[in-house]
């Protein structure tokens, strides 16, 4: 067994496999399938200060090697999370992070303040990249000043590890990454979904109620790898890579590109056991290549 442990700021992960927000519910949905404690950690669904109903149905379109979603941050609000859901999460021994989103800087701050009071939550992932909400969300993550503004405001109230989740829907993601780092981010996760669209040729209508949505799955993996590579060259803080990871080989490619940990997202929908298979597969890869620790692989792309 190779050493799979990795570190994201103050969070020690026993292995580098996390789950992407919005693809793993609150963890409990997977209890029937496997012991969630086997994961390095998991990131619960996007949480906002006020409850959100999300967008109207249809919210999903299957596409080539992927899918579009337009859920729109449906959640019952931060206070409900703290009172009703958080108590169910304290049973987990692995790291639990909360994805935090908002429409204004004040909303991000208010939400982060509530999560800051929850001892068992190891950190937050600041979502400045949701493409499916009318206000805020991705708008914060597509310019350096607005990204820096929301990150520094939340930094003042949130004391533990703050990961900032970046949008791929930008001209230069490395610049946004640097702005987030400069404003106090402890780590960056990338990429969120790629803005896309699906049309039904028969009805001549858009498939999604919102017309556009976020593309995920293997279709976006080359974009995600390229961006992880670019951002890892530009910042010093650890990077969590995600985007279309379906198996251990995909995960290894992200480590080589510079990610210290990875998140499995859409794959959870197709195979709820994908994460545990990926953990085993990473171990097999390291053994096969006679590498004793995952840390020896991170950013070690042969050029």
């Amino acid at each position: 067994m190779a050493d799979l442990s990795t570190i994201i700021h103050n969070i020690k992960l026993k292995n580098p496999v996390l789950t992407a927000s919005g693809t793993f519910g609150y963890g409990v949905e997977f209890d029937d399938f496997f012991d969630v404690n086997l994961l390095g950690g998991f990131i619960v669904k996007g949480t906002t200060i006020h409850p959100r109903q999300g967008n109207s149905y249809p919210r999903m379109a299957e596409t080539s090697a992927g899918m579009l979603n337009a859920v729109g941050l449906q959640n019952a609000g931060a206070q409900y999370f703290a009172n009703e859901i958080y108590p169910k999460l304290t049973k987990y021994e692995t790291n639990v992070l909360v994805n935090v989103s908002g429409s204004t800087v004040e909303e991000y701050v208010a939400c982060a303040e509530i999560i800051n009071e929850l001892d068992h939550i190891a950190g937050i992932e600041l979502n400045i990249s949701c493409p499916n909400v009318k206000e805020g969300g991705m708008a914060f993550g597509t310019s350096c000043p607005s990204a820096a503004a929301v990150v520094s405001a939340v930094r003042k109230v949130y004391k533990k590890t703050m990961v900032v989740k970046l949008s791929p829907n930008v001209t230069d993601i490395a610049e946004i990454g640097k702005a987030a780092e400069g404003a106090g981010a402890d780590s960056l996760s990338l990429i969120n979904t790629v803005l896309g669209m699906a049309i039904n040729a028969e009805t001549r209508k858009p498939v999604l109620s919102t017309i556009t949505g976020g593309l995920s799955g293997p279709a976006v993996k080359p974009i995600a790898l390229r961006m992880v590579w670019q951002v890892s060259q530009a910042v010093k803080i650890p990077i969590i890579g995600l985007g279309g990871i379906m198996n251990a080989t995909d995960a290894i490619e992200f480590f080589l590109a510079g990610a210290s940990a990875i998140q499995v997202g859409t794959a959870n929908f197709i195979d709820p056991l994908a994460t545990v298979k990926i953990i085993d597969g990473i171990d097999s890869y390291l053994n096969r290549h006679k590498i004793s620790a995952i840390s020896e692989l991170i950013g070690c792309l042969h050029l």
Partner: protein
Amino acid sequence: MQMKKSVQNLKVISNVKLNDDHHLLQLHTPDQLESIVPGQFANILADQSQSIFLRRPFSIHAIDYQKNIISILIKEVGEGTRSLAHTPVNSSLNVIFPLGNGFSLPSSKEKVLLVGGGCGIAPLLHLAQVLSKGANDIYILLGARSAVDLVELDQYAIYGKVFTTTEDGSHGEKGFVTDHSIFGNQLDSFSRIYCCGPEPMMKAVASKAKANSVSCEVSLENTMACGFGVCLCCVTETIQGHKCVCTDGPVFNINQLKWQI
């Protein structure tokens, strides 16, 4: 006790072509099947291709608890269902099941009406199977485009009185299911209506049930990515806000839904 959901590789022990586009697959489970409620579903992995990425959800059509067999009725509508419908015997399919909540069942003998249209007839066989154990008085109304599209009528007839409608009049009464004389005549003699099929059909049935104050449950088929409540893609509007069809349904009482009926 209700069975826990799990991911399993199930062997296809038979695959019968029922007509041009319907196949009946029997899947064998290695373990003893625990209780599965009629209306629950299975999410099945098809071979991935350029147009198939996600699993395809199917109602559980029938169960043989003695032989540990689950039957799935597949109508070919696209590439995913076509690929699954042609799964060779003795190969295996990766299945997540049982998922969702089923129909509510009467606690004592009742006169019930089951209404199915198109591939929506699938869960009604298992439902009739279970209802017949409670000695209920079961009426089953099945609608299709034409006589050739009506499948497994003999199976439904084991458990109840079967009525049919076809759009071309080639079997049973001519028209849509809601045109059937059963709706014109003492609908309130039924204590419950169970319905599954295309949404316009279910809305029409729901409206007649409501007008006659008969309790009515419908099984929805919204497109979904996961099937177990994490993607939040399959929501329907209810009086309590958006609910997932996969975990809060697929069966809903019509009073919970915000249908304009």
